């Protein structure tokens, strides 16, 4: 069983959920039924929620998805959930706080690009998926050799998180933003 988690509000501006339902559908067509997605987040749009459910129903993967229907801090998730893989929606190399915090918490995080405009901007690191096809392939690779892939994903995640800490130069830049020279407009 492969457990995937998506930490996101269920909202219009986060609506890449149909792509994930399609991934489940593709896997099912290849005879893979043991992949589950848990959507962790409050429902801001009943419409988006219902559309996701409807699509899952149409594609025959309803039993592969579930929703917490509320936001849950990462540290409050059960160990079973934490042991799964966290799919984080990214814009090419850019990862929001849910992804960064997940990695900081040691969660295995898969970075899935949701804007095709930037798909060529992504590095070849194992945890990055440019497209749904790459995400599907990664899930299959995990099923085939989980131990090896877990190590590679963790290593890729660690490389990423190092880029989001403040070095002296970026700390100075942030201080300049917070304390601008009052004599200069």
């Amino acid at each position, binding site marked *: 069983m492969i457990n995937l988690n998506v930490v996101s509000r269920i909202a*219009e501006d986060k609506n890449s959920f149909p792509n994930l339902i399609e991934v489940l559908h593709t896997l099912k067509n290849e005879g893979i039924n043991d992949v589950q997605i848990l959507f962790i987040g409050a429902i801001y749009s009943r419409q988006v929620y219902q559309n996701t459910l409807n699509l899952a129903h149409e594609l025959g993967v309803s039993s592969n998805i579930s929703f917490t229907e509320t*936001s*849950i*801090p990462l540290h409050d998730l059960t160990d079973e959930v934490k042991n799964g893989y966290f799919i984080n929606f990214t*814009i090419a190399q850019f990862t929001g706080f849910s992804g960064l915090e997940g990695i900081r918490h040691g969660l295995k995080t898969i970075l899935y690009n949701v*804007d095709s*405009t930037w798909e060529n901007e992504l590095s070849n690191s194992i945890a990055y998926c440019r497209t749904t096809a790459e995400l599907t392939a990664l899930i299959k690779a995990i099923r085939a050799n989980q131990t090896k892939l877990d190590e590679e994903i963790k290593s890729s995640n660690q490389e990423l998180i190092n880029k989001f800490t*403040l070095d002296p130069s970026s700390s100075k830049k942030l201080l300049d933003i*917070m304390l601008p020279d*009052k004599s200069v407009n």
Partner: protein
Amino acid sequence: MRKILIVNGQLVLGGAEKLMYELATFAQKNNIEPTILILENYQKEYYDDIFKQKKIKVVRTRLTGIKNFRSPLRMCRSLYWSFKLKFFASAIYESIHVIGLYNIYRAKDTIIHNHRFFWHITNAIQGAYNFPESYFDNANDTIVYINPYQEAEFNNYEKSIPVKCKKVLFKLFLND
């Protein structure tokens, strides 16, 4: 102690609020006193207790539509903050940080300051850029991009409206 003001409309469990938290704790570490201003929302939310633990001041009030005779205390507080931020923000705060371009309307005409930073925290795929021209007509204001793709998206948007604001890129970050 030098002070900054961070403005948003809520303190729920979310990325915008996490950015406020990281900015506020970074400020604290550097001997800058942050104040969190939550406008038009009096509900206690996820980060209220977290900021309280960190001894970071959270103010919930409104700066427009102040008349509320059924709640005179809130009305007095609104009057106080609206007067303070309209006339004395520059004297009190080193800079003002508005989280999300969609929140500019809350601060544009109510918080008067020469160093306002508008943190841009979404990308084009999350919704079309349809902000009014007036949001970006002050050359003293600064848009803060949090990723380079926003820069490209905004350059494209600028073909349709004039933007006088300064722009700067600053990556998301996690304090230790």
